[in-house]
């Protein structure tokens, strides 16, 4: 098959990495794969993952059209960050295809799209799916406030997911919303992941531990990473405070950095904020870490690349028992309940600091689980199978999608009046 994938291609994109792994499997299975970069701004060559030679930028409209005319299968890698997924928003409604949904919540994507001169279309999309009473753009100042105000009731994913012929998600979280928004097949698959694990990796900038154990949180440091919860948990017990250092690795906004720094200072917690790093530095940080704190509150992603990475590195990993993390085996990670996050994290960190946390076997189990589950081979197979299943219903899909669009424009949320007639039409295609 000729396969066309719409995806980020940058070195710093975890999704690009997933794409790469799956493409390798697809090619090994005999398919031809072409790539369209969906990043809002075309990345400079040095910022592109080296394996993506010869990709087409999403803004090269004639080239993309040519590729899609020849494609047997179109695959969209969709996430919540508009900077990385502008191209998906532009093309998915036209190309359709199989969507891998990396984040259940796409409010950020919608927001970014609106801000990029598409305010009217964004408002239309919101109106069609959520009814005329929600004019969120008027009320919202910042994307994360939108998220706080509306998740999990509104995932804001329907407007895009409805264009998919089939959807792959990476955990059960908010699955019902996806099922409600798409007529095509939906499948839960483990996210393919691989990481070069080099326990001997070092970096001179990582200072001496001076006997402290290192707790690491890595990835984009935003509010839902609950870094403040960790800081307070470390601070609660003086012994723990002295025994641990907390390192934050990954991009971080200035105000977040200063807030957390102040908090750690006041609380007497040893905190190092490293900021954005290269892959090599991240490896060194992981090698250096003794425990990884991978809290996501609320949990928005379909699957957590950082949790998987932590498991592959056989690090003791603390997660909140929600979403994707709930699907991890109870004996492979340390789960804290959403109702008592602070208390339970504190208990774990105290034990960890005191050296009484039994984690060796658990971490080993985590590694084995991650290595056997988050693989690209079956993902690639299932991707193709899902596409083929969806093709059986292309005609129905074309019609339902078109009618839904018009009904939406006319404010008809309940299509039961045209139900019988639609059934009669669709029956012709079976």
């Amino acid at each position, binding site marked *: *098959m*000729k396969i066309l994938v719409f995806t980020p291609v940058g070195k710093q994109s975890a999704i690009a990495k997933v794409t790469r792994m799956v493409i390798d499997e697809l090619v090994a299975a005999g398919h031809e794969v072409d790539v369209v970069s969906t990043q809002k701004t075309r990345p400079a060559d040095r910022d592109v993952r080296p394996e993506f030679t010869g990709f087409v930028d999403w803004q090269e409209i004639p080239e993309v059209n040519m590729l899609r*005319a*020849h*494609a*047997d*299968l*179109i695959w969209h890698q969709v996430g919540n960050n508009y900077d990385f997924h502008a191209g998906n928003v532009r093309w998915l409604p036209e190309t359709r295809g199989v969507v891998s949904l990396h984040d259940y919540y796409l409010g950020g994507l919608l927001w970014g799209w609106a801000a990029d001169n598409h305010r009217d279309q964004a408002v239309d999309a919101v109106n069609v799916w959520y009814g005329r009473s929600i004019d969120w753009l008027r009320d919202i100042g910042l994307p994360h406030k939108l998220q706080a105000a509306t998740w999990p009731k509104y995932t804001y994913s329907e407007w895009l997911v409805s264009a998919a012929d089939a959807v792959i998600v990476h955990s059960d979280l908010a699955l019902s919303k996806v099922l409600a928004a798409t007529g095509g097949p939906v499948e839960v698959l483990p996210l393919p992941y691989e990481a070069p694990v080099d326990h001997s990796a070092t970096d001179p900038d990582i200072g001496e531990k001076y006997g402290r154990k290192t707790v690491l949180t890595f990835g984009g440091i935003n509010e839902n990473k609950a870094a403040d919860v960790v800081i307070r948990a470390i601070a609660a017990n003086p012994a723990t405070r002295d025994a641990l250092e907390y390192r934050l690795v990954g991009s971080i906004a200035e105000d977040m950095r200063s807030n957390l720094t102040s908090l750690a200072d006041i609380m007497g917690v040893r905190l190092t904020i490293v900021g954005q790093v290269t892959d090599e530095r991240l490896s060194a940080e992981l090698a250096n870490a003794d425990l990884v704190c991978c809290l996501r509150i609320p949990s928005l992603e379909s699957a957590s690349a950082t949790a998987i990475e932590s498991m592959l590195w056989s690090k003791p990993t603390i997660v909140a028992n929600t979403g994707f993390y709930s699907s991890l085996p109870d004996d492979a990670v340390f789960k804290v309940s959403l109702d008592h996050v602070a208390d339970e994290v504190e208990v774990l960190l105290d034990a960890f600091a005191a050296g009484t946390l039994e984690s060796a076997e658990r971490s080993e189990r985590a590694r084995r689980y991650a290595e056997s589950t988050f693989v690209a081979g079956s993902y690639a197979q299932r991707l193709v199978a899902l*596409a*083929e299943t969806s*093709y*059986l219903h*292309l*005609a*129905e899909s*074309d*019609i339902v999608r*078109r*009618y839904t669009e018009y009904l939406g424009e006319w404010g008809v949320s309940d299509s039961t009046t045209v139900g019988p*007639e*639609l059934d*009669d*039409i669709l*029956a*012709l*295609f*079976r």
Partner: protein
Amino acid sequence: MIPFVGGGARNIVDWLADELVARGHEVEKVMLPFSDEPNDLFPQLAAFRSIDLTDAVDLAICIRPPAYFVKHPRKVVWFIHHLRTYYDLWESEFRLMQDTAIARSRRDALRRADTAALGEASRIFVNSQVVGDRLARFNGIESTVLYPPLPADYAASSKPAGDSITYVSRLDLTKRQHLLVEALALTTTEVRLVLAGKAAGGGYGVYLKEHAANLGVSERVTVDDRWVSDEEKSDLIAGSLAVAYLPVDEDSYGYPSLEAARAQRPVLTTTDSGGVLELVRDGVNGRVVEPTAEALAAAMDELFTNREQTALMGRALADSTVELGISWDTVIEGLLS
């Protein structure tokens, strides 16, 4: 129908309507716009499907695709062609899209839907055996042939036979007027060639004239690159020796064949012309030869030399149209049966 595109496919609807009215029926013509853009295919089919004529009319006669998607308990289809790009032209350069898994899936869905919609009809007729075979092959549907006649007001002229082989039809590569020019250059008699009709794309008419000049037969070839009125057509055919009609693999025998029969002139055609072979038989009511300049030349000379035989074949062609039931009476009896 495509708005503002007239011609053969619309004529049949108008003529049929006139004939029905003449026989005392009340007729409404429902002409629905249709675009061949693949992405719009299924929503348009859904739109056609929403048309329910139950209780509004006693009988619905559906002609071109996707007209037969409309709903009526007594739906009769006079099937004259598929949406061919999804059928027999799939494996040709006329396919409108790339042959991808997605496109094939659309194609298959259309075929299923066509089969289902046609399956609802109480009677299915086709305009030729060629089309009937295709319908059976792709949709598994049996049909009866109802040949489309000329309109009632077609007036055949009457004149003594002349010296030319006349081809009155659009000037087009697929109609192969150039082959006749080449054939003419190989003839040994004084037989002449008249090619009349509008060239669809600018260049072909000019090419024919140049071709004739290069082959040294300009004096014996008339190329009339313009739209020809019915009267002129009738006149040209009446004054001809024989009518040529040799398109590449056309579904139906074509109105020129009927016009020839009306004027009692035999038809010269080729073995690969398609539907015309359901009407014309070599040596009986016309000539059917290999599609080569040599074979055509030989046939043209014979038509010129054996005048009596030529005239006989012309009369036989007229008889053939009667034998095949090419009349509005037959058509209407069939459609209303």
